[in-house]
């Protein structure tokens, strides 16, 4: 039986780990390679690096982090942030990423997803969807895609976009609630569930984890195949092993032994 995946996520800026509340006020939580090693040893099922370095000139730093991580950690690694071209994807895969997450480039040009999937295989193309609730009180729920760390609205309906990119060849969707990110209030379960029920590819829930029950909810109520969290692990609030035990006790299929 396939197990539910627990994925620690490291926001990386200029080769260092950061995690911001609502994507501002960043705090330095260390060397990504060291963090990756620790998460590997702790039994994380995958690891995710999101590069939030503003300029593209610093790409070499990220590739170096990915390369050094892949050398020491025999675990699957997803890398996202600033992926704009087929060459960006190739560079990350060659450095050792197993999956590459596309965000703004997929919003600007959904056909890029198709091109990437045909070139590298759907299994390594993740589309990262950053969504905010835009429906008013009493209205049917509606979410819109935002780019640039949640600052830029696009007018694109998140649910329709999710279906579209899944159809175009995305192998996985990383769904982040921009309302919840950094709040510790839990995932936007309605968002995750609406997307997970509407596509035939795995969905990773992201944004808002504040305690271990939130991880359980993401799978049980959000219908996600995997759950992603950052701060609760980075600052020692909970260990990965503790989180996986908690999820197993709640009845989810977890990989508790290597």
């Amino acid at each position, binding site marked *: 039986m396939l197990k539910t995946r627990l994925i620690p996520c490291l926001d990386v800026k200029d080769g260092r780990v950061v995690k911001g509340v609502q994507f501002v006020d960043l705090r330095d939580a260390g060397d990504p390679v060291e963090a990756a090693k620790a998460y590997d040893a702790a039994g994380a*099922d995958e690891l995710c690096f999101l590069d939030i370095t503003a300029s593209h000139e610093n790409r070499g730093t990220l590739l170096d982090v990915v390369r050094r991580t892949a050398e020491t950690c025999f675990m699957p690694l997803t890398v996202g942030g600033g992926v704009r071209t087929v060459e960006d994807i190739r560079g990350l895969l060659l*450095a050792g990423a197993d999956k590459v997450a596309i965000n703004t480039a997929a919003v600007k040009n959904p056909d890029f997803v198709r091109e990437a999937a045909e070139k*590298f295989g759907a299994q390594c193309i993740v589309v990262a969807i950053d969504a905010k609730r835009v429906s008013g009180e009493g209205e049917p729920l509606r979410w819109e895609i935002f780019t640039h760390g949640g600052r830029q609205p696009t007018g694109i309906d998140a649910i329709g976009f999710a279906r579209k990119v899944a159809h175009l060849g995305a192998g996985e969707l990383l769904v982040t609630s921009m309302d919840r990110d950094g709040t510790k209030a839990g995932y936007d379960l309605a968002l995750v569930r609406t997307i997970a029920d509407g596509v035939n590819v795995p969905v990773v829930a992201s944004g808002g984890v504040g305690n271990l029950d939130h991880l359980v909810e993401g799978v049980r109520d959000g219908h996600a195949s995997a759950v992603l969290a950052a701060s609760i692990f980075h600052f020692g609030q909970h260990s990965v092993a503790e989180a996986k035990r908690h999820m197993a006790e709640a009845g989810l299929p977890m990989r508790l032994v290597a």
Partner: protein
Amino acid sequence: MSVAIIDYGSGNLHSAAKAFERAAREAGIDETVEVTSDPEAVLAADRIVLPGVGAFADCRRGLDGVPGMVEAMTEAVRRRGKPFFGICVGMQLMCSRGLEYETTPGLDWIPGDVKRLHPSDPALKIPHMGWNVLHLQNEHPLVDGIRLGPEGLHAYFVHSYALEPKNPDQVVAVSDYGGAVTAIVARDNMVGAQFHPEKSQALGLALIRNFLAWRP
């Protein structure tokens, strides 16, 4: 002893090479691991590894794009009987035909087709992505000493297509994903794994150690 990991432009071979080096070190085997696109190096190696990620047809084109590579592999593996390990799409390429996007001939070493997964439970997502356990079908030295079954070690899968061998005797292990999914195949001096040993932590390193010690 030397291991050649064939580089034909299909994704990252770095972690595969590192995993083979580490497994050799752990097993106390003196092994050089070379990532190569040189057919002569493949002919000279003691063991041959064919990795692969991406689409079947794209990988086949990549392999054909290296002049003399398929011929060198065929000579080394099929005529000289050197141990061969296909990983993920590298395993799928051992089949007769790949049916992803278009019909593409495989190396035809393991008779059978590579077809899209069709789990019996429609709620199961495609790709089959993540950690799953393995169920033994036929004993093989590759899985010696590795705990399999529901309480066994886990392997990391990420694929939408799977090899369906014509001969069930060539299936060493399957995984369950709304039905049996071929996980490990073997024939003569050849083995293949659908999952990624280089990403499968304890199980993966044990499998690679077994491959390095294997004398078919």
